[in-house]
């Protein structure tokens, strides 16, 4: 079974986010980027499927973040066979445009499964995976939490809510929006990443950047209200513990 995993960088959620001067976007100059965590799960699931039933894993990365190559080398070190960096120095693209770019790149590849993260934190205009599925007219499951390869089809578990799931058999090729791999994404030693850098398995592909239709425009951004309604407890941990115990007791507990 041959899988293609679509990877996107997102602003590092651990870093403090700052807004640009006119309040219409993040201040992207100083942002660090990391791999979208759900894409990491998509990669893990693809690697598990390969380990179980053979085939190959190809990763496609789009985005101008300096960190993109590092993400692709890391994927190779984890077990991907081939990595392709799409374009160079591409600005921020709408998801609709990203889906066009990925769909064009997919046309040159042979695949049974396309996997990507269920969503990304900055996907304002839809989810990449489902847009790609719609564009290519392929069966799809979003919020996927497990894949079992069969002959010509794949059995996928989808999560609804409250622990309720459903299973689907999908004719391949199919597209999955992965919520969580069956196991936590693996770590990889830095030495293996260095080895991957020497492997020659990363290539670059020119892309045609679709014109941004400009149909969805952010006119203002602000930090979401944080703590506006909350009583913020001040002081050190001892003072905080004192106050929290008091609050819990006044709620009739503890």
């Amino acid at each position, binding site marked *: 079974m041959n899988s293609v995993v679509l990877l996107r960088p997102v602003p590092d*959620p651990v870093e*403090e*986010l700052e807004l640009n001067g006119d309040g219409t976007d*993040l201040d992207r100059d100083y942002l660090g980027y990391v791999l979208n965590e759900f894409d990491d799960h998509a990669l893990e699931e693809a690697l598990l499927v390969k380990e179980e039933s053979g085939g190959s894993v190809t990763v496609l990365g789009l985005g101008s973040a300096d960190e993109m190559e590092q993400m692709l080398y890391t994927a190779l070190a984890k077990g991907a066979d081939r990595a392709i960096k799409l374009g160079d120095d591409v600005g921020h693209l709408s998801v*609709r445009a990203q889906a066009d770019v990925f769909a064009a790149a997919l046309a040159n590849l042979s695949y049974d499964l396309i996997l990507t993260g269920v969503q990304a*934190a*900055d*996907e*304002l*205009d*839809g*989810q990449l995976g*489902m*847009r790609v599925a*719609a564009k290519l007219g392929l*069966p799809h*499951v*979003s919020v996927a939490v497990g894949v079992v390869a069969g002959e010509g089809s794949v059995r996928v578990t*989808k999560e*609804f*809510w*409250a*622990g*309720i*799931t*459903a*299973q*689907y058999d*999908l*004719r391949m090729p*199919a597209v999955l929006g992965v919520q*969580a791999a069956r*196991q*936590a994404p693996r770590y990889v030693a830095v030495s293996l990443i260095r080895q991957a850098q020497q492997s020659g398995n990363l290539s670059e592909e020119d892309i045609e950047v679709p014109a941004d*239709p400009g*149909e*969805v*425009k*952010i*006119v203002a951004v602000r*930090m*979401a*209200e*944080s*703590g506006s*309604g*909350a*009583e*913020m407890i001040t002081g*050190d*941990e001892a003072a*905080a*513990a004192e*106050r*929290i115990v008091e*609050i*819990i007791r006044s*709620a009739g*507990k*503890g």
Partner: protein
Amino acid sequence: MTDVFVVGEHLQDAVTEVTFELIGMARELAAASGGQVIAGLVGSGVTGLAATLGGADRILVVDDAALELFNPEAHAAVFASLLSGTGASVALVPYTSTGMEISSHLSESANRPLVSFCTSVKIEGGLGATCRLYAGKIEADVEIAGDGAIFAVLSGSSPAAAGRSGGGAVVEQTANPIDPSALGTSPVGLILPEGGDVDITAQDVLVVVGRGIASADNIQEAQALADALGGAVAASRPIIDQGWLPKSRQVGKSGLTVKPKVYLSLGVSGAPEHLEGMKDAETIIAVNSDPQAPIFGVAHYGWVGDLFDLLPELVDRLDGS
């Protein structure tokens, strides 16, 4: 005049709460422009459920045994056909596990822009929305060029009561426009969860750990606190995905909704998917080292600091008291 289409959602013989929220939202939008609210309901045996959608003016029902279990590919195609049949230029889709399969398809098939993570939508004075990006940290105001759009709306954005009545509520049966057996997706079956060791929905006190807890071993410290409080430990999704706690302990969109008397979170950021499951708790106390963490937006009390400094102090004060 703008008609507003709502993608109705149901599971296990009940319409979901978010569907009523969206119908209520659609009522306000349609009223402002003199349009109608048109809801779609797709499945097997759903005709009876249509009567509950009292906030809609028209309810389009596709009731077909072949659509028994939610089928991502089939439902997306049926809703695309329903939407195009109505001519409505605006559609509201729940940003849920089922809606996520549908919204992008509607955008592609209707060739309309899509806006996700919406908490509010406006039509008058130009289409627009307010959205939660970056796991709830950033709120963005969005303007849309053109006269139509698909909006994927977060659960809990609008009161559900407004969607239960006030519409014409005319139920219209529509033949299934597609043949599900010709598609590449075959539903196998629904799987219900097994009961967990602890029912977190029945607890008065929950100590809720997030990724800030850093390792499986550290959960013991949270357990000691929960024991001292006579409560239980629950968690955010990444803790479950790591395999550190069973699925039955997960709070949120894809986990359980809890309303304990006291919800004390340690190292939970407060992503919208987590907030969905706990924002109605009676007393919410949040501990996080990041003052920007969105959890402080729903908390009643917050402390910015290291959870590992606080935990022993709390246990000390509660033990033997």
